[in-house]
């Protein structure tokens, strides 16, 4: 059966309201969901839900593809995925790019990888 897997911050406390960082669709017959681990540390926890557990604030079931395209509209709250109250605009849309990164930054070597900035 196809399911939705969501990744939330690994450092957050399970059960609390949590932002969704990433999501995948998978078939539980062929794939075993796993957390994302980096350097021995669980960076993102994966929680999987059947499609009919994806709901908006009114409790209506939401198309999983809609969620994938708007994952920041939803939150993971006490085992449920639902849209938060307030604006339904995709708040992940970037209105202004940060152009302040100096060229020397790339050579700073202060971090192991840009990706974990």
């Amino acid at each position, binding site marked *: 059966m196809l399911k939705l897997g969501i990744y939330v911050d690994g450092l957050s406390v399970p059960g609390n309201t949590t932002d969704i*960082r990433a*999501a995948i669709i*998978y078939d539980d017959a062929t794939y075993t969901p796993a957390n994302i681990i980096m350097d021995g540390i669980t960076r993102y926890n994966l929680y999987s839900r059947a499609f009919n557990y994806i709901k908006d604030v009114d409790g209506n079931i939401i198309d999983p593809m809609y969620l994938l395209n708007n994952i920041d509209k939803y939150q993971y709250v006490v085992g449920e995925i639902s849209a938060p109250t307030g604006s339904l605009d995709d708040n992940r849309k970037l209105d202004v790019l940060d152009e302040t990164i100096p060229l020397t930054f790339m050579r700073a070597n202060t971090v192991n990888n840009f990706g974990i900035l």
Partner: protein
Amino acid sequence: MLIKTDLSMMDLTGSNEAFKRIAIPFRIYKTSQVISLGEPAYTDSVVVEIMSGDTLVSYTSFTKGVADETAIARAKYAGTQVTPTPVEFTATLINSLTVTGYTSSEFTVYVTYQALYHDTVNMVDDIVGPSYSPGLMSSVLNQLSYLNNILPPIPDITSDDINSIQVLAEDITGESNDNYIQDEIHLQVNTLANRFVVRPANGSFYKKDLVVKLNDVTLVENVGYKVVGINLGKTRVTTSNDSVYDYIVILAEVASGAAVSITYRAFGGMVCPAAMNQTRTLLKNIIEYIKLGNFITVDTLKDHPLIIYILDRLNLIENMLNISAPITYLYSSSAVDSWVNIAHVAPDGITGLVDSKGVGHFRVRTEKYFAEIKLNYDLTSTGKVLSSHTVSSWATTIDQDKISHISTRVCPKFRILWNSDSVNSGLVLQMSVTRSVAKDIYVEIQNYGGAFSTWTMLPSTGVVLTPVTTTTTLPDDSVWNSAESTSLQSNVVVASGKGYAIFVGNIPTHLLDPHTYTYDITGDPEDNTTPIMTKHTGLPVASLITGSDVLIGEVDALVFKVYDRYAGTMISKVSDNLSIDGDTVKASAMYFDQDMCSVEGTLTKTEGGYNLWVGATTGTHSVVNERFDLRQIDILFKGAINHA
């Protein structure tokens, strides 16, 4: 209709009207002529008459034949069987008469008598079917005698100088003017060469009107000619007081070339062989005339220029339009491949050979899938024998059907079977259609190769196609057996149409970067100005592949869909680089060149299924802005049309 079951077949009283024979004519042409009645008759009931003017008058110059003791014995026995009161039969029965009154001229007598047996031809109409009886047999014999003596024509006419043949009506009166033939010339008579028999062209004739001439001089009967071959059957049925004959014998001395003419009144009622010959000749001439091509018949139709022209035009149109009726098969589809036979290439009807190279052109339609596919084969190839090229397709996609695409999409595959030691046994085209949810589906396939296609679709049986497991039959009825080293199967080609989605999700690329590469410090650990990137496989994610749909060798490209959060658009990028190493395919695409952003995927086929890793290398600005999300990865198979 009532069925009368007590029909009496024998009359023991000698007075039953149903058993009475009335005025049966017999021709008398000699002295003491015996008349056979052909059946037992009551002696006391026999009455003989002759025609006088228009009426019958009694005639006494005859004697009754001897008693028929056999018939009398049968009648006596039958009398003892009558219930409840047996009958004692005392009458006398005879079978014949002897007419003694002939002097020099022929005449007809009419005999009336009571018969012992029932005459079936006189039965009343509402009686259904007589029992077998002597009366029935007598009637049948009489009918046969009539057919034999009256109806058959004279066997043959040899005269060459018959100018015309008339089909004459049967004339039993001997008075019909229509049957009067004048001066019929017979040049073949040559008595010196023993050719002296004349057979009139119109068959039997009445003697009384016969006039025979030699060179326009009338011959005298019994001197110049005589009539022979009395036709007893025709003489019996005529009402004329005359006899009917078949032949004339010329007695006069006639040399070759002398003209013998005959004038006569024909009995008629039959078709002479000469008439049949003339009719045949006429028909033959008509047929020859028709065969000149001026008229269309069933035989000449195919050779007529107009028809040839029309057929050529039809062939041309069929080829241009590639017309061929589609065939619909019922197929049991599931996630596991199930191979069925759908078409074959049979040996050429004339040469018996099979082309080792060929092209097939098919239209395939099932569920939410339609594609026009060309399948090319080359049996001599040392690489892939079969390749496909999708001309056009319409199929379910994530964009159109969202998540249901995964469960409703179908993935047709094809392969061919043949025996390498006898290529001319023909080829079999097999199909497998996989689907994540098992279901019996209708698959419609149209051979789109036109009239010159070497492929022949197999007929649909209307029931679910039987999968071929180990053996099947080739077009020439020889056996293909997978256990034989010479029984080969080609590579499998996939015709999935548009993109086959293997990953669906939303993963920010900056999440993928640390799984894709790391910077390592080389040399002096205090000098961090020369980091080097170490490559990693990527982040393992779920792959959405049904069964074993994806054949790594058939993968042509990966299509990455990355969402640009600043532009608000989806970037769809076909892989720039793709490498296949055994069961692993790796592909990457640079999707945002300005900031050196690329995305990549690695797909490996294993015993248990598929493993998929996704990765990204994202430029500095895009990382800090968390600008891009990986949303989807599709596979394009070889021969597929460009991803739309």
